[in-house]
């Protein structure tokens, strides 16, 4: 009998788990519906500010026949600056309070290179502009997510459909900027911000400039061209209008030395320094 009791207990626990799981699924659905209604009526993507964790493995796709919404814009955007944690000093803040614009009335996205693996992108969008894109999408707007589509456009004139590959990053919350790990040096990139529907159709809101990540490592090209510049400078110039991390340097240096089979003198070692690069 004792064994039977144990079995019955197990069965009950199992049933409980199943019910719990079903309940959670239902809750998820309700949340989803609620989100849709929220988007529909308040036109806001929800999401907490500041989750900008590294995007791990990117899945690269191939540029498809995405629909380019010629009508452009969105209010995915909180307008305040991030809170700066600062200790106030009286004399610094006793003067006039300086405020800078929270919004310039633009619809644009700007892409920048941080290093050989990371890009940085910021954007500004006006509600009206995003609404127009949304209306153009018709019923497909309901399930659409806001994404950054990152294209590899190395050595091509990008027309929206001819990228070598791309990946998407879903943007949530009031983010106004994002760090993008592309993980590839010496490649060119362009980013679209747009709506991705559950059917996989992509509607572009704004397109960024193109940037190129720098090359890492010694060039394979060894053609030598030499020049003298004396004549270039033989003219009169008229004034226009009237802490250090050593890893990259050291590895670059070693890399070069290995390539050239050079050695350098060894150095004596010295004591610990308290110097900090200003």
């Amino acid at each position, binding site marked *: 009998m004792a064994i039977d009791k144990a079995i019955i207990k197990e069965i009950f626990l199992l049933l409980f788990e199943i019910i719990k799981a079903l309940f959670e699924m239902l809750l998820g659905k309700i949340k989803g519906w609620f989100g849709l209604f929220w988007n529909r009526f308040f036109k806001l993507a929800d999401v907490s500010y500041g989750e*900008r964790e590294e995007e791990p493995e990117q899945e690269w796709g191939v540029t498809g026949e995405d629909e380019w919404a010629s009508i452009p814009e969105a209010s995915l955007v909180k307008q305040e600056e*991030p809170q700066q944690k600062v200790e106030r*000093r009286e*004399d610094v803040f006793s003067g006039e309070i*300086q*405020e*800078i614009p929270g919004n310039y009335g633009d619809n644009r996205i700007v892409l*920048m*290179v*941080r*290093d050989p693996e*990371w890009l*940085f992108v*910021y954007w500004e969008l006006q509600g009206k502009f995003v609404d127009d894109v949304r209306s153009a999408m018709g019923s497909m707007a309901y399930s659409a997510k806001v994404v950054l589509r990152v294209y590899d456009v190395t050595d091509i004139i990008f027309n929206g459909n001819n990228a070598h590959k791309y990946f998407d990053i879903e943007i949530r919350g009031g983010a*106004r*900027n994002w760090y993008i790990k592309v993980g590839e040096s010496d490649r060119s990139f362009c980013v679209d911000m747009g709506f991705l529907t559950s059917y996989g159709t992509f509607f572009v809101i704004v397109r960024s*400039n193109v940037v190129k990540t*720098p*090359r890492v490592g*010694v*060039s394979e090209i*060894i*053609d*030598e061209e*030499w*020049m*003298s*510049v*004396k004549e*270039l400078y033989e003219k009169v*110039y008229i*004034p*226009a*209008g*009237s*802490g*250090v*991390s*050593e*890893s*990259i*340097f050291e590895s*670059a*240096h070693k890399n*070069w*030395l290995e390539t*050239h089979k*050079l*050695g*350098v*003198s060894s*150095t004596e*070692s*010295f*004591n610990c*320094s*308290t*110097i900090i*690069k*200003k």
Partner: protein
Amino acid sequence: MGKGFLALVLHAHLPFVRHPEYEEFLEEDWLFEAITETYIPLINVFDRLIEEGIDFRITMSLSPPLISMLADELLQTRYIRYIEKRIQLTGKEIERTKHQKEFNSLARRYNANFTNARYVFAEKYQRNIVQAFKKFQDAGKVEVITCGATHGFLPLMNNNLNAIRAQIHVAVNHYQKHFGKRPNGIWLPECGYEQGIDWILKDAGIRFFITETHGILFATPRPKYGIYAPIYCPSGVAAFGRDVESSRQVWSSKEGYPGDFFYREFYRDVGYDLDYDYIRPYLHGDGKRSNIGIKYYRITGKTDQKEPYSHEMALDKAAEHAGNFMFNREKQIEYLASVMDRNPIIIAPYDAELFGHWWFEGPDWINYLFRKIAYDQKTISPITPMEYLELYPVNQVCKPSLSSWGYKGYCEYWLNESNDWIYRHLHKAAERMVELARTYSYTNVNPLQNRALNQASRELLLAQSSDWAFIMRTGTMVEYAIKRTKEHLSRFTRLCDDICSNTIDANWLTDIESKDNIFPEIDYRVYQ
């Protein structure tokens, strides 16, 4: 002639900090400390070397904001007040320490140093020490090069060529005004280079710039001599790469000279150590303890029990380190010369303020280094990059790669979560400035509009200073950097709006002109 060359490069820069609206201002001390501890000791070293007929070469970038502050009357007057207070305090210190022999001799030394600083500053160079560097340049010993107008980090200017061009051209014009000639070279702010910048330098008549090691090593095609000879960018501007070895010996927190236990400890200052009531008159108005510049202890070791500083022992160390540095460069040059078909050049660039301010004995080290190079060896000769180009006018053509000398070697130090919010504003402001310059270049502007347009250029340039992003990242004095960024951007925005709507407030304009008075000669058309 020996087998190779050493080009010591010192980059002297401080952000433009000048607050006439306050009687005194904490951040103005950055300049005063640097004058006392770095610029004047270096001037003394150069003067003595010249007097004694010892040949030397040094390349120094003096950034336009630094030159502007050194030439500014208000700050000159304030410096005299600053140094006189220190002379007064060391007088008291001599009295206070009269029964402590070790400290007493140090107090006397500081008193002598400060008195000398006052003399060199106020009398010898008539308050404008830029003239000292001009004198050394005219003597052919120091090559003064320029920098970005306000030390703006060029690779993060979103390829706004007009904005980058303005940073370069304003700097070059400013240099010409102070040195009576155009600069041969430039220190790119933070060594920040990206492809294409060289064309703008070329356009300004600049012959060379210094770049980070991997900027050259990762260049395309592969540079035959690595960083031991310059390369020409496609524009014909030469790029010299920083030598890793010599940098590490001075910079490295593990192996660098400045950490020697006999050197002066930076972090033990009487501003923190002495009795509050005694030191209070020498602190700032808010009464917060801060550095005074009188430090009695040596690094000693990894301990809080610091021992008294002995200047004589520290000087012996500086001489020893200078000898070691020279020895290593000799070995390096001998080896390089054996594998290269020309005499190699080693580029050793440092922040000027490392010498004297952080590394108290740094100027003495430079002094010993040049004396030893002159008398103790025949392998290396000191040289400036320009002299090297005259010696070797034919060089390989390569495209350097994006690089900076900041943490990790690219843009991260100036673009991260502590400071990334500034770029949308800086980019927008630069675009608006270019638009304004275009609009008002072809129409008649009245004198008031002209002033407002010029002031808008100043505000933009000041906002672009890489120092603000740098400080936000380091985490000290952050509120000041934020305030400055917002202040210049908001002044710029208001000027811009007022110019467009033709509602310029002349009184307010006069007020900000008197505060942000950098580049009085600026012409906004530099942005067109």
